[in-house]
């Protein structure tokens, strides 16, 4: 039994090293005065936490964190400092005393409170013993989906996820309302300079964008078997679209996906999600109770070989329901992130001045 101590110690070692790295990077973010440096360091921060999440057995979360941290949040922050011209603050040490005292005392209290928490990895802790254990034991018979995170997210707590999707949609609409709906000024190509070709980037992007989109679809439809699902696929897909806009220009992307279409798709996603729930209600179940998604006479028509083995209870309603709402989530997340990017990238400082003069 050499594997046991090796694997457990390795996990603990990785845990501690990564957390120390997180501390170092967080300290650097607090210390730096340059906003750009803070943004770059923040992308490292979320990258380290993505690896840490894998070590902590949360590959689904790591997926999301890696894509959001590597792609979307960095780009959104960059767009914001472009529009605010990246001013740096003037630190005055006397103003730092009160926040430091507050944070130190709150932190001390929280650490004191943390002493009462069950130790890390305790299977009998309240968080793991009751409802978490029940999800683990009952997913196979209730839902019939190997990925229990997807089962909890999409089926057991489907109403909660509907709320989250609606929040994402509302945030996208909010950004669109505040920053405008599309390009305001001429986004003309930059004046040609000697050596200002980006052939390498254009070719590489042409090769990569379809691959990223394809991978997003894989993550989407693989979500109930392995790590993945609508949220992850949505952010990956939006990174593909944002990459297209970065390399080929916002105009070209907006010709392919006009802002109006992006907003409609975002609302369509929420509608699909809620629609699945309403179909369940029409067929006699509760809202989002996928067991009632198909009426029994239709369910009897579905041939058993589609899933490949007859041993499991079929759970057609659950499979179809999860697929349906995940598609809704995919559409909403993708379209919202694209709308947000359109808002930040389509606005320029000149537009704001012109608007203010009017």
């Amino acid at each position: 039994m050499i594997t046991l101590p090796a694997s457990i110690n390795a996990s603990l070692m990785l845990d501690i090293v990564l957390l120390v790295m997180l501390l170092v990077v967080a300290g650097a973010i607090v210390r730096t005065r340059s906003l750009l440096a803070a943004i770059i360091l923040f992308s490292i921060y979320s990258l380290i936490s993505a690896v840490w999440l894998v070590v902590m057995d949360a590959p689904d979360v790591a997926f999301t964190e890696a894509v959001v941290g590597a792609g979307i949040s960095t780009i959104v922050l960059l767009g914001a400092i472009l529009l605010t011209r990246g001013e740096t603050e003037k630190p005055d040490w006397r103003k730092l005393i009160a926040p430091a005292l507050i944070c130190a005392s709150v932190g001390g209290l929280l650490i004191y409170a943390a002493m009462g928490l069950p130790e890390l990895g305790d299977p009998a802790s309240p968080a793991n013993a009751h409802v978490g254990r029940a999800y683990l034991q009952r997913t196979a018979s209730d839902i019939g989906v190997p990925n229990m995170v997807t089962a909890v997210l999409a089926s057991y707590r489907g109403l909660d996820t509907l709320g989250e999707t609606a929040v994402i949609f509302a945030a996208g609409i909010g950004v669109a309302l505040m920053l405008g709906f599309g390009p305001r000024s001429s986004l003309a190509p930059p004046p040609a300079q000697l050596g200002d070709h980006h052939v390498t980037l254009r070719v590489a992007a042409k090769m990569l964008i379809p691959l990223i989109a394809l991978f997003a679809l894989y993550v989407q439809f693989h979500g109930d078997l392995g790590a993945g699902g609508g949220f992850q696929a949505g952010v990956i897909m939006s990174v593909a679209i944002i990459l297209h806009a970065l390399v080929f220009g916002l105009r070209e992307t907006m010709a392919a996906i006009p802002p109006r279409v992006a907003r409609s798709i975002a609302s369509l996603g929420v509608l699909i999600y809620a629609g699945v729930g309403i179909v369940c209600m029409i067929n006699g179940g509760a809202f989002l109770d996928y067991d009632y998604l198909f009426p029994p006479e239709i369910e009897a028509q579905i041939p058993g070989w589609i899933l490949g083995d007859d041993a499991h209870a079929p759970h057609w309603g659950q499979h179809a329901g999860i697929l349906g709402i995940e598609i809704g989530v995919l559409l909403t997340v993708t379209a919202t992130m694209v709308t947000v990017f359109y808002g930040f990238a389509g606005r320029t400082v000149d537009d704001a001045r012109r608007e203010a003069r009017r």
Partner: protein
Amino acid sequence: MADLLASIGGGFVLIGVALSVLGAFGILKFPDVYTRIHAASITDTAGASLVLLGLCLIAGISLVTLKLVFIWMFVMLTTPVAANALANAAFGSGHKPRIGAFHIMRSDERRQTPRGTDAP
């Protein structure tokens, strides 16, 4: 046989990791951005290739091998492109190298203020 392959694979992983560490050391020690890009991009691609080859040997032939090959392809595609974009950004915005001549491209002499220095 499988054990032998796994040991050889582990050896490859170690060599690749050693290359990565050497590259990281270069990034710490080299004098300016351009030389650091040089250190990073070469060791990253070579180290990644060796590590992924080693993992392929450990995995044997399966779906996992295919995924590893995909990772290798994507790393080989994106890392050099990112290095290119970074060098382009540094050179195009007038960041001067410590070593060698900067005024190779005349059009860059027009620029008075170098951008991208530490205070934006």
